[in-house]
Structure formats: C-alpha cells, structure tokens
C-alpha cells in the first residue's frame, strides 16, 4: 500500500515563503517510491468558510457543496496531512482558516454523533504537520495560529503528539526563505523523519 500524503498550501500568494517551505518537505518525501503526494493550493480549492449552521451535527455532512466534497474524503484517506500558512495579522491566513473551520463536520461526527472519523485500525497511524512563515521576527508571532491548527488535527484523529511544527519567522518578501540559514535543511530533515515514522507505524 502506498503512503498517501495530502498537503494544503494555505497562502494566497503562490510559490511564496510558506509554500516553498512546504515544497522542501514534500521534495524530501517524494523521492521515496512508496509515497504518493497530492498538493492542493487552497486559493484554488474552492473551499467556502463554515456558515455556523450546525446542520452537520444532525446530518453528519456539510450542507455546502464545494471543493470540500473532494477534500473531506482525501483528509480521511491520507496517512500524513500537511498544512502551510503565512502569518497575516498575527494569525493564520483567512484561506486556511476556512479549511480548518470546515473541519467542523468531523468534530460533529466525533463528539456529537459519536461516530468514528477514521476506522479504529488506522488510529495512531496518521501524522500531521504545520508549516508557517511570518514576516515579523517576534518569537510569539505563531502563538495565535497554533491552537486552531491543533483543533483541526484533533478532529481528524491526529493526536497532539503526532503533529510536527516548522515555523520560520523573519521572512517577508517573496524568496526571503531561500537565504534563511536553516529552513531548508530542517524542512528536508522533517520530511525524511516523517516517512520513517509513518512506515514504522503502518508496518505494525
């Protein structure tokens, strides 16, 4: 069975710093012949914000018909899910926030309807990754983004301890990350270690 990797590039700016960071991680994964990677640019994914209607608490599905119809199933099928976002105004960008809020259907399934999100035998065999870049150099610039990201992975059955983070501050203009001293090495190291870890878990 191939290892399925689903990557959401959350920035509205294509091929900027956060997407480059994501590409480095993916690049170090895809060299493995057992790996299938699908990368989605959220700006082109047609994912509307959550309407807050709570219908999913009864219907076990979202009443909106959009790109999320496709990604809902892919999120369940993936072994590793990556999300990248720039920090705008101290938080994740609006596009990844829309994706995260639409995970409400998984939360309803898990906590209201008490149904499984992934089959029991796949629990503990999924990994999550959050990649972020920020123009500001402040050490706390990622603090407001992380709780939303944790919730997202939590409701899709990826435990806190199975989430990896690589967050690079002080990169603003396009291409700034290319000259960052450690970002690329750390990203590639992360990609390799994730593949090793998921292979270990899937083999069990």
């Amino acid at each position, binding site marked *: 069975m191939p290892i399925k990797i689903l990557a959401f590039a959350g920035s*509205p*700016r294509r091929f*900027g710093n956060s997407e480059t960071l994501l590409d480095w991680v993916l690049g170090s994964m895809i060299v493995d012949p057992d790996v299938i990677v699908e990368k989605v640019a959220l700006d082109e994914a047609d994912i509307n914000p*959550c309407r807050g209607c709570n219908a999913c608490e009864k219907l076990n599905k979202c009443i909106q018909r959009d790109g999320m119809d496709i990604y809902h199933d892919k999120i369940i099928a993936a072994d590793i899910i990556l999300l990248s976002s720039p920090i705008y*105004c101290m*938080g994740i960008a609006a596009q990844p*926030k829309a994706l995260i*809020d639409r995970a409400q259907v998984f939360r309803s399934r898990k906590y209201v309807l008490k149904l499984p999100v992934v089959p029991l035998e796949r629990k503990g065999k999924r990994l999550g990754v959050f990649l972020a870049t920020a123009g500001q150099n402040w050490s706390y610039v990622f603090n407001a*983004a992380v709780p939303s990201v944790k919730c997202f992975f939590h409701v899709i059955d990826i435990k806190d301890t199975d989430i990896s983070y690589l967050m690079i501050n002080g990169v603003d203009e396009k291409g700034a990350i290319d000259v960052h001293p450690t970002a690329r090495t750390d990203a590639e190291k992360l990609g390799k270690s994730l593949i090793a870890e998921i292979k270990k878990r899937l083999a069990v």
Partner: protein
Amino acid sequence: MQVNLLGISGSPHRHGNTETLLDSFLDGARETGASVEKVVLKTLQYSPCRGCNACHKTGECIVNDDAVVLYEKIMASDCLVIASPIYTMGITAELKGFIDRQQYLWARKFILKTLYFSNEHIKRHKGIFISTAGLGWENVFDGAFPVITALFNTTGFEYFDNVIANDMDRYSGIRNHPAALKEAFEKGQNVVRVIQKLKNG
C-alpha cells in the same frame, strides 16, 4: 460632539449569540447618544487579502471591493466594535479575511510612512472586541486577541475592552447567560460616556 460608533459583526450565523451580544452593546451605546452603525460582514462582497504586497509600493489595495469602503468607515469612527464567534480557537474566516485586508494601511504606516496616529488620537479612539464561544475553556479566546490587537493597532484604536462569554453550549445560548447581555449593554453605555468626555473635555 457626536460619538460615531461602528459595530461589525463577523459571524456567518445571523442573529446568533455573538450578533445578539453585539446588538445589546449597540443598544447601550445608542441610548447614551452615540450615532451607531452596524455592518454585517456576511452581507458584503469582498475577498481575502491576496498577499501580493502591491500595497507596499502604493499604499492602495489593488482589490476594489466592499472591504476598502468599510476600512474608510472604520477610519472615520470614534469607536470600533468588532464581533466574532470563536470557531476552532480563532475568529471566523470571514472576519480574518477582512482583517487581512488591512495590509494597505499597515504599509502606509510602516513602509511608506504616510499614515501616523498620535498618542492623543489613539486615546480618543476606542476599540472593543465582542465574542462568544461554545466551549467553556478559559483560554478559548486567546487565539483571537492578538489578531484583534493587530487590527486596532493598524487602524489607530486603543484596545479598550472585551465583552466575551464562553460556555455557550452549556448555557444553550446567550439569552440564558446570567450576565453577558447586561454587561454588553452597560459597556456600550460606558465607552460612549468615556469618548464624550474626551471629545468635550
């Protein structure tokens, strides 16, 4: 002198907990003599920031839609009241999409240096954050505060107060909360009195 107060509702859910709390705040402000306008983001047409950084050169956003009009209104207000429910530990995607559009003002302030707020200006302009959350966790608003702070900083408002109520799921809605609506009404009265005093003093 008239106090101009602008309330912005960032909830996609009309007349839900957060908008009801905002309405109570606005009622208090209106009763105290403020000129009140309420805008519901869901009824506007705007797109999120594209991150193109064109505004870093010109100080203008290349996207001409309702967001720019609303920022003009914000800049003409004495009091800015921002309301959003907490979804997944943060503000809604609608409100985040709007707040991210402030980048052109940020560029004017920090890159082009064509926009500046004196301490006196900031003191006279008050920002209020109104929010509700389903969860009862104490830290449920922590992801929202830094984003709201960024908005108030960029637009020249002092972050004056919060009206926040968590645990909505347990209360089955804001109307069953023992104190929140009254607190919102009184805080609406209070901020208008404070601004009136600053304007007339």
